[in-house]
């Protein structure tokens, strides 16, 4: 007989009954996206780490209230993102987002010509600057939905709003971005 890995619902059930290894497995599964979400919302690595850790702590305490059968990721992101937004409000500052160094292209990436690479880099830099200029609610929607590649449901959970609000914020944010980029062209 071969042991199969536990699925998420089983891990949640075990964690709910106090199995620390099950909880650790769940934390390990979601710590990356939770930290990145917290970083984009809080604006600092220190605040993001604290937000993620406090968020997971609160989530574990609240596991008994987690609805069986629901997706864990949006629920966790809602808690961590709330911690992150609280820290941003209190800190009132944000680290500037930066792109990976050109040499950090992932294995398997196509290698463009130097001129094309330079142009692409400039375009990304312009786009990132335009995103950073957006009002916070628009920027957060763009960050969650596109930069972090969250689903609309996950974005809504992270921002603490309804899916319809996410859709409308995204539409307005994209329109602003287009205007901003055209004005620069």
């Amino acid at each position, binding site marked *: 007989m071969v042991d199969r890995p536990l699925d998420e619902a089983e891990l949640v059930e075990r964690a709910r009954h106090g199995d*620390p*290894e099950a*909880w*650790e*497995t769940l*934390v*390990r599964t979601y*710590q*990356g996206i*939770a*930290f*990145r979400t917290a*970083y984009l919302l809080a604006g600092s*690595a*220190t*605040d*993001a*780490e*604290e937000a*993620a*850790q*406090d968020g*997971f*702590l609160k989530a*574990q*305490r609240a596991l008994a209230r987690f609805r069986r059968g629901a997706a864990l990721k949006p629920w966790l992101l809602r808690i961590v993102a709330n911690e992150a937004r609280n*820290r941003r409000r*209190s*800190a009132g500052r944000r680290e500037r*987002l*930066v*792109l*990976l*160094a050109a040499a*950090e292209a992932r294995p398997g990436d196509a290698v463009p010509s130097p001129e094309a690479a330079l142009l692409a880099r400039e*375009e*990304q830099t312009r*786009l*990132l600057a335009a*995103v950073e200029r957006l009002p916070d609610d628009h920027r957060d929607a*763009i960050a969650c939905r*596109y*930069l*972090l*590649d969250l689903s609309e449901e996950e974005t809504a959970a992270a921002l603490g709003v309804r899916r319809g609000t996410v859709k409308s914020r995204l539409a307005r944010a*994209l329109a602003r*971005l*287009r205007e901003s*980029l055209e004005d620069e062209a």
Partner: protein
Amino acid sequence: MSSLERRLHSLGRELAFPPEPNLAASARPIGAGPFPWRWVALAAAVVVAVAAAFTVPQARTAIFRFFHIRGATVERVETLPQAQERSQAGGLGRRLALADAERRVGFQLLLPAFRGEPRVYVLDGVLATVILRLGDRPVLLSEYRATSYQSLKKSVPGSGTVEPVRVDGEAGLWLEGPPHTLTYFSANGEFRQRTVKITGNVLLWTHGPATLRLEGRISKSQALRLARRIR
């Protein structure tokens, strides 16, 4: 999906995120593994273990093995180290004038409004401690500049109170229950165990580049009120 949306997805893949912290290690139960000392790039560190008389039920607090704020890690331990009693002012280092102490540690100390010259002690050139008075009780305020949350490490027994708090919006931890034991690292990161027993509760928090610590026979509300006056 529009061209702009595709470009945003692509931009997300090119963002340089800070290194991902190992939060799973924080969720590890007591005894599940050793603290990752190889991470600890220490200028100086202090270990304080809170030994007894805790008020929060174990079920509520025995969730994480590690708690972090910048410049400090609190670890739950099963067994406290052997410790000798010391007075609050013992083992704090060399007494210096405020200006000399600030030159020695390399930053301006944060203090409450003070009458007269504060008594400042500096340990190993990194940890500055000032003795404050709250009514007729002495309270120690210790400060150091931390670049990572591993710089200071406290240990509490599994049944102890470790409560995340905020001080003027900055992260903090409230540890309740005497006595404490204290161990620290030398300035070059070499582990130098020195264990003493202290009586009192502890508030840890960050303010700008500094990590601060209040220690004494004070309640949580007294500590928080005092901390908010320190700037």
